[in-house]
């Protein structure tokens, strides 16, 4: 869609995140408090249309970074400047409300991405077809199997409007054929719609040539 010159869509400056272990959190009277830097002085930028592979060992800060980008939590220091709407799939499953049906969740999620009723309506069939859950669309999502849940979440992320897409460990579940379908779809929305994608691919399920940018985190710092 956008044929203009690529421009910076996310700019991260000196981003740090300190976690304080809340002394009363785990009840009882154990008041020892510990601190931990999940991210320390992280700097990078992402251009419009990039597919970024975010890698690093467990506890390197990948999820924290994506949570800050998705505005689920705030940084301790630093700043991010960005452009457009972000949709994220963090740790299997979008922001579903378990009591609501599949279709109600699609509307709710679309509304959170500032889409209007007509725009959402147009995507419903595509979402259900891709996820293969057309039969169960009027069932509360709490009755979905893990696979159905995951497929619906992924399909919604692909079809609902957003300029930036964040995918964290989304393919922990799902069979091989669905993974291939996802790979094709990711390439599709990137090349046809110019959407920027940041993803964590823990088990290297996708070919390396999918990405045009690599960001590796080691103990909360970027490895250059």
């Amino acid at each position: 869609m956008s044929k203009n010159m690529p421009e910076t869509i996310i700019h991260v400056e000196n981003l740090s995140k300190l976690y304080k272990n809340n002394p009363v959190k785990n009840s009882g009277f154990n008041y020892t408090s510990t601190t931990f830097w999940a991210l320390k002085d992280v700097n990078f930028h992402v251009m419009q249309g990039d597919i970024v592979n975010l890698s690093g060992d467990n506890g390197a800060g990948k999820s924290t970074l994506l949570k800050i980008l998705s505005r689920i939590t705030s940084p301790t220091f630093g700043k991010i400047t960005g452009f457009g709407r972000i949709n994220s799939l963090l740790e299997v499953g979008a922001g579903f409300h378990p009591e609501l049906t599949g279709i109600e969740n699609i509307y709710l999620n679309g509304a959170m991405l500032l889409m209007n009723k007509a725009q959402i309506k147009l995507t419903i069939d595509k979402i259900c077809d891709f996820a293969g859950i057309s039969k169960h669309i009027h069932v509360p999502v709490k009755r979905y199997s893990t696979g159905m849940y995951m497929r619906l979440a992924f399909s919604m992320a692909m079809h609902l409007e957003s300029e930036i897409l964040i995918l964290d460990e989304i393919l922990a579940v799902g069979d091989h054929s669905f993974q291939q379908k996802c790979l094709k779809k990711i390439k599709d929305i990137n090349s046809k719609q110019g959407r920027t994608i940041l993803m964590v691919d823990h088990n290297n399920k996708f070919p390396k040539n999918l990405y045009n940018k690599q960001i590796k985190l080691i103990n909360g710092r970027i490895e250059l």
Partner: protein
Amino acid sequence: MTRKNQIWNITPRPAIFKIRLRNLCPYRYLFAKLIQREITSFYRQTLLGPLWFFIQPLLTTSIFVFTFGKLTKIPTDGIPPPLFYLSGIIIWNYFTDCINKTAGVFKDNLPLFSKIYFPRIIMPLSTVTALLMRFGIQLSLFITLLIFYRFNGFRFHLNSYIFLFPLLIINTAALGLGIGLLISALTIKYRDLNFLIAFGIQLMMYATTVIFPLSATPKHFRKLLQINPVTNIIETFRYALFSKGLTNLQSLISALIISAVILFCGIIAFKRAETNFIDNV
């Protein structure tokens, strides 16, 4: 509507004093969707559905008529006891519903809040608006009872205070929302307060003129009871309907000011809490 080219910033401490309604405007469809969700989930998986909204106030009123009217013989300002109690109960119910629902906003919406961003304040705002439907149903019950008494010989005259009714409801909502937001922010880290709320609300009812008229209280107590905005709201409501009850513009204005201050504090506490509550739950 679509903010494709909207530039955004993520910083450690967003400006909490900048409460811009303009930023919420694009989310009005979400607001409508959340109200709809709230209303349908009220009676999902119940057999009687919205009937529960009638049963609860009716049972409470009957028990109040028996215990406070017949047993302890607390006066009701010359208003038939069922009308007296129900008029207080419906407002009190709306008030406590607002508090309870708003106070649990982080806990109840954890799956949503931990996955996707939208201005969090939309959630409690939509809940309080959705609760108006429940209030409306209970109000219609009250009006039915009022008409029934009218045809059975009870004479009453509405006065001009009835035009303040929308203001009374807005005031109730603002106060309930404000208290709820404060509690929601304070209970993220330390859940101790949760224990207080349940019986705190119960106790507060006895400091509100739900079961007794303000005119039946000792004079030196009245000023104290009138600090509670809900007392002034209920007294005004009864005054508007039956011309019985102690109210004046001064006590109404004080109720409005107290509610506005509490709502303001609630919003600020909520805005502080929402940025990284996920780290503390």
